[in-house]
Each structure stands twice: as structure tokens, then as C-alpha cells.
């Protein structure tokens, strides 16, 4: 029972990350019909927004501490962050501590600008080109973005801890009437789950209840007609791309305490996110979200010892196995629309 509960929690948590990435990818697929291999890189850049903010807040000047010595035997230089000087030591320490959530404020404008520049400067010219060309150009872009980050931050993962207050874990066991300590779960992972829920709900509400969203949905269904109605669909699609970039970026920012960011984390998620989107069905936002959670939960269950001892290695292939089964039984994934990316 407790093992089950834990894996459901793990699955929901994994699923939130998958769903968020797949959501952004589907926005681009569904609205623009572009195969964006740079989407993983956007996720990675989001994570590095948190790293960057942390680094900026950590900017410091050195004060010599004559009491201690460094590895070469010289007097030790102690770093004092500038935020301590500006806000005082306790407020400065609080800001540093909360740098990951604060990075959301940095990531939103940064990702929006990156998304818009990407769409206007590059992607726009590839709407009419074959998917193969889109793959090549976005893959090239992903490599370039990755290498730029590597040049600044190196290849090693960079620890970006959650705020102290959210670092511990919650004991569900006692709440649920199970043995105390049998179901405990890290607070930050719960935060991530709720955060993902808010973002997903926000995107759906935005598309469902705003005029902007209505036009975009109409554009997804029939771009030409919307254009004939005299609506400037292109501008809205640009914003849509920016929105997708924000969703990917925020998914990255909030994931940093769980997964210390490194420059190739985007590539690691890329293949998986495509699988999620396609299993969900091309062009379907609910499909992407559903597939994200489904695959997350199945993967968690496949990692259980009982399952693994029965089928060794199942946890490494479960996602692909499920993808094959679903695609063979449901030709367009869970909720796909006919004719999207089928030729």
C-alpha cells in the first residue's frame, strides 16, 4: 500500500515534468506545425535562468580573513555577496535562499523574448519548408544554445537547492492512518506538482476563455479561413511561440532543485517529450497532458523491485513499449486529430 502510494506520487511528479514539456511542444506543433527540436533547449535555458539568477545574487566582493588560509597557504579570501550589502544580511540571505522561485520572475521575460526572437528570426521562415528542414535547423539551434551555456557554465551539474523552508519532506503516513514515516515525500516535489497544475490550468483557461485563445484555436483548426477573416493570425502565432517557450522555461526553472541543471539536460528530455506528445496525439493539448501523466506513472511502477525482478530492464523500455502499444491500437495516439503530421 505505502509502496503503491509512493510510486503514484512519483508518477505524478514525473508526469508533471513530462506534461509541462509536452504541453509547450504541442502548442508549437499544433499551432504552427513546426517540429521543434530546440524545445528541450528552451527547457534547459529556463533551468539556467535559475542558475543565472543565483549567480547574479551571489555576486560578491572579497574580504580577506587573516585567520584562515587557502590551499596554497595564502590568507583566505572570503566572499561577501553584494545583496548582503544592499538589503542587509538577513534579507540578503533570504533573497539568496529563495532564488529558485524568484527566478520565475526572471524566466518569464527572458523566455518570452527568446521565443519571439526565435519565431520571428528563424522559425517563421520554415513554416512552408519540409519537416526535415525544420528538424535540421532547430537541431542546429539546440546545439548552438547548448554550447553557449556550456561555454559559460561548464558541463558539470550545478547545485541549485530549493529554499530552506521547502527543502524537507512531508509525512503522509500519519495523515492517511498508515504507519508514521512510511509515506514521506519531499516538499519541493509536491510544490512542483501543484505548480505544474497551475500552469496547465492557466494555459487551458487562456485558450478557452480569452478571445486571443479563441482565435488561436480557430487558427489551429483552419489557418487559412482565419486569415481570410482579416485576423492577423501570424502575430498571434508569434505570441503563441513565446507562450510555449515560457511554459518550457518555467518547467525548467522549477525542476532545478530536483535535477541539478547541466547543459545537455534539454537533449536528455527531447526524445522523451516527443514520445509523450505523439502518444498523446498530435495537436491535442489534453492528450499531451494525459500522456505525460500516464507515462510518468507507468514508468514509476515499472521501477518497482517486484516488477523489475519479474521483467529485468522493464523500467528502461516501458515508455517505448507503451508508446508502441498505444500507437498500434490507437492510430493517432490518445486524443490526436486526423491529418496532423501524418504525411
Amino acid at each position: 500500500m505505502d509502496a503503491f502510494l509512493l510510486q503514484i506520487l512519483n508518477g505524478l511528479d514525473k508526469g508533471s515534468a513530462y506534461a509541462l514539456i509536452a504541453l509547450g511542444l504541442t502548442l508549437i506543433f499544433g499551432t504552427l506545425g513546426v517540429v521543434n527540436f530546440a524545445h528541450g533547449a528552451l527547457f534547459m535555458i529556463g533551468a539556467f535562468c535559475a542558475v543565472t539568477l543565483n549567480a547574479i545574487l551571489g555576486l560578491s566582493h572579497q574580504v580577506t580573513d587573516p585567520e584562515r588560509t587557502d590551499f596554497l597557504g595564502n590568507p583566505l579570501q572570503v566572499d561577501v555577496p553584494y545583496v548582503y550589502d544592499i538589503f542587509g544580511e538577513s534579507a540578503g540571505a533570504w533573497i539568496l535562499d529563495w532564488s529558485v522561485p524568484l527566478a520565475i520572475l526572471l524566466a518569464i521575460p527572458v523566455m518570452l523574448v527568446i521565443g519571439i526572437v526565435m519565431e520571428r528570426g528563424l522559425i517563421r521562415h520554415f513554416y512552408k519548408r519540409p519537416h526535415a528542414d525544420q528538424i535540421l535547423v532547430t537541431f542546429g539551434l539546440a546545439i548552438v544554445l547548448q554550447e553557449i551555456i556550456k561555454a559559460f557554465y561548464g558541463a558539470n551539474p550545478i547545485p541549485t537547492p530549493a529554499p530552506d523552508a521547502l527543502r524537507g519532506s512531508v509525512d503522509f503516513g500519519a495523515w492517511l492512518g498508515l504507519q508514521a514515516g512510511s509515506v514521506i515525500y519531499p516538499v519541493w516535489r509536491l510544490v512542483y506538482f501543484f505548480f505544474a497544475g497551475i500552469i496547465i490550468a492557466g494555459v487551458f483557461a487562456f485558450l478557452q476563455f480569452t478571445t486571443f485563445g479563441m482565435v488561436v484555436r480557430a487558427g489551429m483548426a483552419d489557418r487559412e479561413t482565419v486569415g481570410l477573416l482579416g485576423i492577423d493570425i501570424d502575430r498571434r502565432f508569434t505570441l503563441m511561440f513565446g507562450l510555449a517557450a515560457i511554459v518550457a522555461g518555467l518547467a525548467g526553472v522549477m525542476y532545478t532543485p530536483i535535477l541539478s541543471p547541466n547543459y545537455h539536460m534539454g537533449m536528455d528530455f527531447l526524445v522523451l517529450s516527443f514520445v509523450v506528445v505523439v502518444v498523446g496525439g498530435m495537436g491535442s493539448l489534453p492528450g499531451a497532458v494525459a500522456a505525460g501523466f500516464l507515462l510518468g506513472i507507468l514508468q514509476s511502477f515499472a521501477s518497482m523491485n517486484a516488477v523489475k525482478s519479474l521483467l529485468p530492464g522493464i523500467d528502461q523500455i516501458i515508455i517505448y513499449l507503451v508508446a508502441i502499444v498505444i500507437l498500434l491500437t490507437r492510430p493517432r495516439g490518445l486524443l490526436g486529430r486526423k491529418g496532423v503530421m501524418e504525411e
Partner: protein
Amino acid sequence: MLGLHGRDLTLFLVVTALVVFAPVILNPFPIGSSLAQFNAGYPDLMQRFVIYGIFAIGFNILFGLTGYLSFGHAAFLGLGSYAAVWMFKLLSMNVIPALILSTVVAGLFALVIGFISLRRSGIYFSILTLAFAQMMYALAYSVLTPITNGETGLQLALDDPRILDGGERPTSLPVTDLFGLEMRETTVLHMGSWEFTIGAGYYFAGILMLIAFYLSIRIFRSPFGMMLRAVKSNQNRMNYTGLNTRPYTLAAFVISGMYAGLAGGLLAAMDPLAGAERMQWTASGEVVLMTILGGAGTLLGPVLGAGLIKYFENIFSKINDGVLHAWFGAVPDGMEDVLVTVFHPFVGKGWHLTLGLMFMAVVIFLPGGLVEGGTRIGRLFRRRGRNAGGAEAEAAAKHPAE
């Protein structure tokens, strides 16, 4: 000649010439000069050029003709390698049985995977092939280690049985051969300060690539090829005419899988080691990139794309700061440091950056890939009134990549 006509024949002869003279063409800089860094005319890399050329030619038969984008083709490459190494271990160091088995094994797997995956089209097909390949990679890396030797890769051992080779235990590892001609056999030609390495393995692989290239031309020009192109332009219409297209696409899938298997077998024949990374999605992605970079659907494009990517991987990654300083040693010191700083991010550990920029540049400025660039240059020459044949100019304008 050989059933080829006009431009096809010219193209084939040009490629043949390039393959034959590659050891010279690829070593344009004298030994010891600072530009010798760009020489690619050593056996291992030349072999890679032609072997990945075979892989890309095969991939192009599927993708270029039918438009089906397989994202799991590296699985067949890896299978070919594993089959070949097992053949070396169990049967004989002769490469012929190994290559036959690797082609057949890859073909059989392609038949099964293709049969299932081709029930879907578009991106659904891509993800199905990707899923199969990733499963094979994950299992080969971990659970199947008794068969694949996991992370380290399958290797020869002194006490392998090698039934046909007499079975006595050698003191050093045996080498692959073709009826006695060792694949690693080389001879070096010295001409002044130039050195050219003539390798048996390279020419063996080169001949196989020429055969593969020839077959691909024949397929492109055959009624079967026409049928595949028709599938690409409109499969629905084909189906409405009452024609079942599936056998044709499946045949293309199997043929291209066998090409990949042959390439994998050849990789093992040149260097008897088979690693699981050969099946990873990045490897599948690489052949997609090679094909698009060179020009999908063109005959020569995939080979050029394969050459260019392998060139970057092997040559640019080896340019370090020391080499940069040697290049710019002649310019004044301050200037030298500036130049080194400017070039530093793009070479050595930054070679990926150059590769990424090149992908973008090619696809932005040369839609249609490198072959498109060649055609444009060819057109330019024609406009000036020079009477160069299209295909010839196209090939001559290329970087000598194979």
C-alpha cells in the same frame, strides 16, 4: 555502361574517381606543415567516410524516396556490428561471412520492425521506429550484456573458438581479413613532403560503397523507385487506385535496413568492436542529419553529408589551443592571442558549436542541402558560358568528402 546513362554515369564515374583517389585528395597538406591538421587521409577516417556513406545511401532509399522518416535506423547499424563481431568470434576472421550475416540479421529485424511501424505514417511512424531502436539500445547496454558486453562493447578475445580458423589459441588478437588480405594492411607512399596512406580496408569498404551507390542509382531509376516516389507524393491517391503500397514501402524499409546492417558489419570488419551507443537515438539522428544536410532524395547528397559530419567529429575536435598558436605563430603576439581567442570557442571542445552553426547555415542558405549548393555553383558556371556537365560540376564543387 552498366545500365547507367548520361548524368548518372558521369556521377558514378566521378564518385568512383573520388573514392579511388581519396587518400591523395584528402591529404592535400604536406606532413609537418601546420595545416596538416586538416588532413583526413588516414585509413580509419576514410573508412568511416565510406561506411557512413553506405549507411546514409541506404537511409536515403527509404527517406528520400518514400518520405518515411525513420528515427531508429541506427538500430540496424548496431545489429550489423554485433552480428559481425559474433561471426569473428565464433566462425572466422574472414570478413565475408560476417558481412553476410550482418546484412541478413539487419534485414530480418527491418522486416519485423518495418512491418509493424509501417502501419502508421508521418510522425507516428517516426516515433514507432524510434521506440524500437531505443528499446534495443537500452537492453543492449544493460540487460543483454552477456550477448553485447554492454557499455564496453563486444570485443574479440584470445580464447574465442573461431571454428574455421583452426581453433588454436593465438598469442595476440587475430585481425580481420579477406581471404588472407588483412584489413589493416597499409602502405605509405612518400612524395616529397606529402605522405599518402593506401589501406586495404579502405579500398575494400570503398568498393562496397561504390556497389551500394550503384545499386541505389538503379533503384532510383527503376519502376520500383518510381512507385516509391509516388508514395511520397500522395499515398492516398495510390491507395484509391486500388494499389497496396505497403509491400513497396516495406521493401524499401528492408533494403535500407540491410544497407545499415552492411555498414555496421563493415565498421566491425575495420575495427572489431561493437558498442551499444551505435544504436542510441543520437546515432539515428545523425544519419537523418547526414541525409538532410547533403540533400534528401538526391543521389550524392547523403554521402556528402556523412563525410562532412564525420570530418567535423574527427578533425575539428582535435584542434586545440596549441594547434591554434602554431597556426598564428607568424602574426604579432597581441594579434596572435586575439586570433586564438576568436577561434577557440569553435574548435576542440567547441566543435559541436561549429557543427550546429553549420547545420543552421546550410538549411537556411541552401534549402535542399549541399547538393543544392553544388547545383547553384554549377548554374553559375553555365551562365558564364562554360559548358560543364551539371553532375560533374556538382561533384567537382564539393568538398572532397569521401
